[in-house]
Every structure is written in structure tokens, then in C-alpha cells.
């Protein structure tokens, strides 16, 4: 007996474009149903349709949603308000923006209690504290009177969950509940959601773009593409053998170490704009298995082996094409290890004891009362043609480090040598190092043509010869990053996110740098587009012998791309070594926690190292080992900051667990 039954739900924009187009699924009590899809595929709008909370300009245009037998779309608004927050609760992606900033946490939860349980006064306060305790907020009695800005991101999401639980809902809709959070916090929040669900027997609609999150949390999965569910199956079925070409591609696009130097199988192009495809299969344009029929006729929903799929390949059991093999099998057949430009391994970039501190000013006269030690004594080196990944959670100082290397921020102390030349304090050699930024929408000036963007560096540094030579160079750059030459006369807003990131890479390459600092270059992109960019970076490295400093929090990308890894925590590097060493045999408890927090699509068989609490403020780091307060293995020696311990020629860790006894 299903708790929620969605039948042919359609949601339209005012101009008639269907952003949710005939979605059907159902969820049983105690079950987690995941809606998986890339940005803009309509999964959030599906959730908001269920709650009848569509934003202005988006309207429900058909279908039925039955909960406990009652059709939600037939309820008057007054009764619907009892459903919202009562029988059906929702948590959102950005906990920082989803809480009212000027109301205390307690008051916001109490609203739900008053509304749905008629609980007021002291009883409500007591229940608030109980709920906060239940979602794992320490010192709940004090926190209940605090404002959202006093809580960390993870805590805010816990408060959101507490608020959702306050109405004792039968169904919880979680819309990308952990996307805005760091991996270790994500693991905490997901675990909390699982435990709560088990405890209360709630049904959950989990909306996510992350296959790993699906693998660890969902019972059944609906894969969405361009407003439709293209495949629906149990988790086991889906992960054992995805049927729809899109799902197969999604799996294949995930980077991981096994594929080493091989290109990822990226999906060409990007998600089509809403409502642009009215005829045929919506994935046909990007599908390598598509044939004429796919473009002419919209595929029907087909039931294959007890699971649903929307693809002409499976029109009927007889016609089924059996070539839909698991992507992981196909990978192993491609075996040739790529031969990278064999470099001489002498350091191209040598950073020693770099510090970047920001003063904290306080009081009437704004005196400096302390320092935020964003980067606090970092040493690293990158040889030519190699990739060093810098891994850490937000706030650990990795972006600051990257900017300090580029001299976008002044270094407080330390030295940065490039090919033997000291860079700190000079303005020389700007062309040797360039940066690719995180947000392709913010990193290109919307008022400049692509050609102007690419030429800017050359003219600022006075290189590239006369204007004809520069134009030729620009054409070459566009070829290199896989964009049409005539795109140089266009403006950034005409390009998709992935294409913009290609332009940003071309801009950096325009001045022929030897080292690229890539600051989370794929974190704003969809998985399928991420694979395109990673492939591009990899092939550019092979072709041009570039070195990369790859700043990221995504360990899967690290495995795929990096030769060496540095793990950063609160401004310092706590472990570094060859990628295989650090990721396969992590030694520092923080690295171990970080690795175990990453949701894996192969889910099983790993030990989960739970990490308590949040990243402390770099303005006031814990004395001694910065990680000690969150560390399960802390001991007395941790009162002093540990020195470096060499575990192998390449593997170095800073932890007292590995102190030499001699």
C-alpha cells in the first residue's frame, strides 16, 4: 500500500513549457524514493508541486497526487495547509537561506508545534529542546534560543530537519539536503536522516544529483531527465544494470581511480532548455544509441524485468537490445595506460612555509586583536607535467593558498619559487601561472566578447605578437578547448556552464602558462559536463606538459586526475603523498574520516569513521593538533602540534599516532 501516489504530474511555466512532464511514481511508508537528475531536470519542481508551493509563474497543469487516498490537488487551501508541515514536510538545499534570520531556532520550530499539535508555551519549548536533541544538536537547551547565524551550516540543516519532524510527518521531502554541505557534514546529516526514518517509519522523497547519495540512502530510484522520469528501479537493480542510455552514461561519467588515465565517457552537449523538445526522446540529441525513431517518436513507458524505462531500446521484451551492458564492464576492456609526458620530476613550483594571515580588528579604534591564519605554514612542490591535488573542506584555506600563489593576496611570510625564481614580493612571471575558477558564471565578464576575454592576458603581459598573430593564437586556443572558432565573436551569456568553463581554460592558456591552478573547476557543473572538463584538462596536460594544482573537495576527481595529494585542515597540510598512498591507505585520522564520508556507488564494505562537530574557526584554532577535538584517536600528546613523519619517500603525515618512538 503506497503512502503517496503521483500520477502523470505536469507542471508548466507561464509560457506553456512543461518543466515536469507526466511524472508518475509512488512511495510506501518507511521507504526512501530518490529522484536523481542533473540541474534543471525538474526534480525540485516535482517536489514543490507535491507541496503545492510552486513559485509565481509556474503552475500545475495536470495529474494527481494521492496521499492516504486523498487527492492533494482537490483539497481546499485550508486543508492543504494542514498537510503541509503536518503529514508532509520538506527540507531544502540551502540551510543558510532557508531559516528565518531574525527568529530564534526555537520560535521557528514552535510555529510548527502550535500549528499542527496545538502545543504552546513551556510544553512547546520542552518539545523543541527534545527535537533538537533528537537531531543531534549538542546543548539543545541553550541552542533553542539562538539565531540561525550563530549555527554552522550542518547545524542549520539539523534544525531544518527538527522543524520538519516537529509536525510528525508521514512523508519527508528532502530536496538536495546535503549539496551545500561539506562531505563530512553530509555524512552526518545523511546518517541522521536514515536513523530518523528507521525510527519513525517515515517515507522519504530524496532529491539529489549525486549517485553516491542515492546508493547509500535510497530504496528505489527514479532517474529524471528534462522533466521526465526515464528510468525507475530499485536501487539494487539500477546499480547492477542501468537500462536507459542516460543512466548508463551517468555511471560512466563518474571519475574514479580505476580508469586511471583514460578519458571519462562524457555525455556530449548539455541538458536541453526546458520545453525545447516536444517531439521524440529528450535524450536523443546526446545519445549515441539513438536512431531515427528516437527523434520522431516519444518513447512510451515500458516495464522491463519489473522496472520501468522510457526508451525505444526496450519497446518490448522481444525487441530489447541486449547490448545495454554495465558500463563498468566496458571500462576494463579499454586497457592501454596512457603515457604522460615523462617529466624530470624536479620541482616547477616550490612553496615553503607559506603563511597568509588576515588581521581581525575589533573595538572602538579597530585595533588588530588577532589573526585569521587562513594559510599557516604550507610547504609543497609540484613537478612539471604533474598534478597535485589540494583537498580539504570549505574554510580550510585551500582557495586562499591558491590565490596567494598567484599573488592575488599578499603572503604574510614564506617563499614561493617558480622554476627557481622567488615570486613573493615581485610582479614578474605572471604568465607562468594562471587560474581556472570555480564558478564559470562569475569568472567571465558578461560585457566582453570571447575574443576580448582571451586577448586580455596577452595584451596585459605584452605577448603574442601583433593583432593578427593574436587572433590566430585565439583561434588555436578555441580549437584546443573544443569550441568553434566563430564563438570568439559571441558573449559569455550565449554559452552553457561547461562551455564557459572551456573559455575560462582557454583564457588561462592564452599566456602559455606552465602551471594552472584549478580552483574547484567542476564543482558548479553537472556530472556529465564535469567529465567533459576533466577529460579536457587531462588531454591538455598530456599535450602541453602542464602542471596542475587542483583544489577540490571531490575525492573522486582526485583519484582520477592527481598524481599527488595534499590534505589540508585549518590552514595546514596534515597529510601528503602519492594519490594511491593517501587514498588507499590514509593514515591521518582526518583523511580517514574524509574518505569514509564520501558516499560510494559501490557502497558496501567500508568502515565509516564518524567525525564529530564542525570545522573550528581558523581565527581561533584549537591549541595543539588542530584536529584533536574532533579526533576519535586523540591522546595526551595531541596538546602539541605534531611534526612531520615520513612514512615513505613520498608519504608524509602530521599526526602523533605515527611519531617515531626513538
Amino acid at each position, binding site marked *: 500500500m503506497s503512502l503517496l501516489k503521483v500520477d502523470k504530474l505536469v507542471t508548466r511555466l507561464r509560457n506553456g513549457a512543461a518543466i515536469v512532464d507526466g511524472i508518475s511514481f509512488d512511495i510506501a511508508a518507511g521507504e526512501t524514493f530518490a529522484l536523481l537528475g542533473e540541474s534543471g531536470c525538474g526534480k525540485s519542481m516535482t517536489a514543490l508541486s507535491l507541496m503545492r508551493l510552486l513559485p509565481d509563474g509556474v503552475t500545475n497543469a495536470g495529474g494527481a497526487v494521492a496521499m492516504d487516498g486523498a487527492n492533494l490537488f482537490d483539497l481546499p487551501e485550508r486543508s492543504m495547509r494542514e498537510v503541509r508541515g503536518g503529514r508532509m514536510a520538506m527540507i531544502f538545499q540551502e540551510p543558510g537561506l532557508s531559516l528565518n534570520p531574525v527568529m530564534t531556532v526555537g520560535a521557528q520550530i514552535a510555529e510548527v508545534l502550535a500549528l499542527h499539535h496545538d502545543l504552546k508555551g513551556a510544553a512547546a519549548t520542552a518539545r523543541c529542546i527534545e527535537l533538537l536533541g533528537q537531531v543531534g544538536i549538542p546543548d539543545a537547551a541553550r541552542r533553542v534560543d539562538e539565531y540561525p547565524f550563530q549555527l554552522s551550516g550542518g547545524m542549520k540543516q539539523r534544525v531544518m530537519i527538527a522543524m520538519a519532524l516537529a509536525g510528525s510527518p508521514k512523508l519527508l521531502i528532502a530536496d538536495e539536503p546535503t549539496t551545500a554541505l561539506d562531505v563530512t557534514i553530509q555524512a552526518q546529516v545523511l546518517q541522521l536522516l536514515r536513523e530518523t526514518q528507521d525510527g519513525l517509519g517515515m517515507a522519504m522523497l530524496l532529491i539529489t544529483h549525486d549517485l553516491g547519495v542515492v546508493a547509500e540512502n535510497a530504496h528505489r530510484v527514479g532517474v529524471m531527465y528534462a522533466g521526465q522520469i526515464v528510468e525507475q528501479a530499485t536501487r539494487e537493480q539500477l546499480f547492477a544494470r542501468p537500462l536507459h542510455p542516460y543512466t548508463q552514461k551517468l555511471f560512466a561519467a563518474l571519475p574514479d581511480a580505476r580508469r586511471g588515465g583514460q578519458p571519462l565517457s562524457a555525455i556530449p552537449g548539455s541538458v536541453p532548455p526546458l520545453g525545447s523538445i516536444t517531439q521524440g526522446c529528450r535524450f536523443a540529441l546526446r545519445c549515441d544509441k539513438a536512431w531515427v525513431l528516437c527523434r520522431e517518436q516519444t518513447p512510451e513507458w515500458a516495464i522491463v524485468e519489473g522496472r520501468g524505462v522510457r526508451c525505444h531500446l526496450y519497446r518490448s521484451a522481444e525487441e530489447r537490445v541486449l547490448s545495454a551492458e554495465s558500463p563498468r564492464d566496458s571500462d576494463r576492456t579499454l586497457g592501454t595506460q596512457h603515457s604522460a609526458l615523462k617529466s624530470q620530476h624536479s620541482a616547477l613550483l616550490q612553496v615553503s612555509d607559506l603563511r597568509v594571515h588576515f588581521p581581525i580588528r575589533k573595538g572602538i579604534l579597530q585595533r588588530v586583536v588577532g589573526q585569521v591564519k587562513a594559510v599557516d605554514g604550507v610547504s609543497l612542490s609540484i613537478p612539471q607535467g604533474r598534478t597535485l591535488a589540494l583537498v580539504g573542506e570549505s574554510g580550510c584555506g585551500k582557495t586562499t593558498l591558491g590565490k596567494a600563489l598567484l599573488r*592575488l593576496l599578499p603572503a604574510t611570510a614564506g617563499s614561493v619559487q617558480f622554476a627557481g625564481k622567488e615570486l613573493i614580493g615581485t610582479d614578474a612571471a605572471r*604568465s607562468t601561472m594562471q587560474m581556472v575558477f570555480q564558478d564559470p558564471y*562569475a569568472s567571465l*565578464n*558578461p560585457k566582453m566578447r570571447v575574443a576580448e576575454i582571451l586577448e586580455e*592576458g596577452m595584451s*596585459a603581459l605584452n605577448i603574442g605578437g601583433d593583432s593578427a598573430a593574436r587572433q590566430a593564437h585565439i583561434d588555436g586556443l578555441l580549437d584546443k578547448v573544443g569550441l568553434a572558432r566563430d564563438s570568439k565573436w559571441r*558573449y559569455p551569456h550565449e554559452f552553457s556552464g561547461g562551455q564557459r568553463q572551456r573559455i575560462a581554460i582557454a583564457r588561462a592558456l592564452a599566456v602559455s602558462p606552465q602551471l594552472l591552478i584549478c580552483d574547484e573547476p567542476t564543482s558548479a557543473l553537472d556530472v556529465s559536463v564535469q567529465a567533459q572538463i576533466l577529460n579536457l584538462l587531462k588531454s591538455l596536460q598530456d599535450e602541453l606538459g602542464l602542471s596542475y594544482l587542483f583544489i577540490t573537495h571531490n575525492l573522486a576527481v582526485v583519484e582520477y586526475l592527481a598524481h599527488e595529494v595534499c590534505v589540508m585542515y585549518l590552514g595546514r597540510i596534515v597529510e601528503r603523498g602519492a594519490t594511491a598512498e593517501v587514498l588507499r591507505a590514509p593514515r591521518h585520522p582526518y583523511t580517514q574520516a574524509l574518505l569514509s564520508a564520501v558516499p560510494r556507488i559501490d557502497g558496501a564494505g567500508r568502515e565509516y569513521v564518524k567525525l564529530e562537530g564542525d570545522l573550528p574557526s581558523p581565527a581561533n584554532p584549537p591549541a595543539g593538533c588542530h584536529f584533536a577535538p574532533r579526533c576519535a584517536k586523540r591522546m595526551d600528546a595531541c596538546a602539541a602540534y605534531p611534526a612531520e613523519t615520513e612514512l615513505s619517500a613520498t608519504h608524509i603525515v602530521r599526526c602523533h599516532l605515527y611519531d617515531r618512538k626513538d
Partner: protein
Amino acid sequence: MSFQLVFLWSDKLIFLLLAVAVATAIYVRRHEHLLLPWKRVAKNGVAMVSLLVLSLFLLVGLLDTLHFRSALPQTGGGEKVYSPEVLSVFDTLVGPLRTHTEKTYSEPFALTLYAKESMTDAHGNILRDYPRLQYGGAHLADVSQRTADVAKRALIGGGLGLLVGLLSFYLTHRTVRCTSGCDLAVSIATLLLTTFIGAVVSLATVYHVLGTDKVGQDVLYLSLKSIRTGLIIGTVTTLVTLPLALFLGVAAGYFRGWVDDLIQYLYTVLSSIPSVLLIAAAVLMMQVTLDTHPDWFDTAAARADMRLVALCLILGLTSWTGLCRLLRGETLKLREMEYIQAAQAFGVSSLRILTRHIMPNVMHIILIALVMDFSALVLAEAVLSYVGVGVDPSMISFGTMINAARLEMGREPMVWWALAAAFGFMLVLVLAANLFADAVRDAFDPRLNRTETAT
């Protein structure tokens, strides 16, 4: 008739503004992404109708800006002497309106003066009656014919106007095509306007359509002349505001540190003085300066004009702070944008970053602020003139018209037409400007157009 061209200070500034506007328009036309928001404006029917009305006002204002002095009749071979009276092309176009002055007040469409006078009739008897106007309705024998005559003339004029409208439509519609949506609204508005103007023109030749004022001047003429004053106040002021706000705001936001402190201090000091008082104080001082140097000007018009320009200067100097603060805030945000950092990583100079990256990206704020300020300034002129710190009392403006008419409020029956005309013209001008400004804001505000830019 020979004449001598006169370029008053305000004329030069207007032409400068016009040149800047034309140059900008040409530049924008060549750049697709700059043209995009304007296309959104063009799709907005209300905005295009407002623009139509505004351009009519602008046309009157511009015609009124081409000044000259005509030569006096030669008195025997000597050097050419020019009349001390400075006229504009507009004055000559509406000739009769300007020259047909009565003795004193008369109601709209009146045949007689507003007050009774003692007269001697043909028989030598002295009687008190309303004397006939010298020009207004002089072709009629008596009042009873008026209604029919007004209707007839209005119909003929309106008909001709409609015809002209349709003709212009026919001539232009093939080349100047509206993108979509606004077509109908603009077409109807154009026809209505040409019909209305036709009717008014036809009536104004023989009647005082809006009556006459205390010294018998035609109120319609005064109202039309006021347009130029309002336009100048609303636009020339920006010549002062714009560079100050732009350079100081952007510099404060980009360089931060002591530059920011200094600029912030400057605008906090200026904005802490209530603006009316600051303007009043500055205008009083300006008056002292002008009064103590009567030798600077050769005509009364030049003097009044100088005062107008000085008023714009003062308004500009006292009103740049708001825009400056806005631009500073925006620049603070922009300087953290990744494309600025990418430029810094290339070692691009600060000046180049300011001109290539920051200024183009704050232009929409400037534009929105300017169109929004325009109507506020037109309204402010009336208030300031009333307070006594506005334009020269001899200069025709909405403020001086209201000020003069207000004194007659107490008379029975009330002299309402001058007030009504001034307020009415102002309302149409300001309303059109406000509606247009709204459309511009909607089209340029990136927050409102996110969906369109993101795809």
C-alpha cells in the same frame, strides 16, 4: 530677415548632452548585448507610449533651445543692430501664441477679459462690462457662436492631425517596425496624439486655449516654454552628478583603504545636510555672486540662463551622493568577482580593470538612477522655485507659473487655469518619465532578468 545665432550656456550643455546621447545610441546599436535590454524596453507598450510623449516634450524643448537674435530694422546704412530680445525657433513657430497678449487674465476659450471694466459705448455711455479680448475669439460676433465654432475647428484640426498621423504611419511603418507587442498601443497613441495636437493647433490660432495670465500672456505658450526649463533641470544636472558619482563611487569601492574612507567622509558630510537647505544656501550664495557682478551678462536672458545652469550645477553637486553610495556598494561586490581576479592574475592595470571590467558592469545602475532622477528633478524645480531658490523669476518655468498663479487663489471666481495648466503639463511629463523609467529598470535590472541571461 537676418539674425544672429545665440548659444546660451544651457544650449551648449544641451547640445553636448545630445551629442553624448547620439554617440551612445550608435555605440549601443553596434553591440548586441547592450542592445538586448533596450529590445526588452521596446517590447513594453506602456514604455513606448511614454517614450512617444517624452519625445514630443523633447522636441518642444529642443526647438526652444535653438536661440537667435533677429536684426532690428536698419536705420540707414549703419552697422547691423540686433534686438536685445533672444528668441528661439520655437518662439517663431508658435508666433501668434507669443505675440497675442491680452491686457490681463482671461479664461480658456474666453471672448472677454476676466474682470469688468468701464467702457464707453458707441453712444458715449459709460458702462461696466467684460471687455472683449483683442485676439481671443476676435473673429466671432458674440458668445453664442462659440460652441459651434470651437467644435468645428476642433474637428477640422483633429481630422487634419489624424490624416498627418496616418500619413506618417504609412511612410514609416514599413521601415521602422516594432519588434512585437507594442505595435498596437503605440499606433493608437500616435494617432490619438496627432489628432489631439491637430485640434489644439487649430484652436490655438484663434483662442487662448488655456486662457491668459495676469499680464495677458497665453498660458499654453507659457506651459510649452516651461518644458525646456524642466528638461534642462532634469538632464543637465546629470552632467554634474554622473562623473562625480561614477568616478568617486567606483574608486572608493575598488581601491578601498584611505581612498574609500575619504570619499565616504565626503559624501556623508554632504548628505548629512538636508538637501533643500543645502540647495537653498548654495543658491542664495550664487545669487549674491550674480547680483554683485551684473557686468557678466549682456542680456537679461543670458543672466537668467546662467542662473539656471548654476542651479543645475548646485543640484548636481548636492545630489551625487546617493548614486555614489550605490556604485561603491556594487563595485565592492564586483571587485570580488572571479573575472576581476582573473584579470589581476594577468597583471592588468587598475585603470584598465576599472574601465574594462567594472564600469561596463555598473552602467545599468547609472542608467536606472538617471531615468529615475529625471522626474524627481522636474518636480523639485517647482518646489524650489516656490521656495525662492529655483530659477530666475523672469524665466518661464512650471515653478514660476505655479508661484504666480498661487497668489490669485483667493480671487472670486478663482483663477484656476494657470495652475491647472502647469500641474497638468508637469503631470504628463513626470508620469511619462516615471513609466519609462520603470520599464528601463525592469529591462536592465539583472535580478529581474536572470532567467533570460542564464540560458
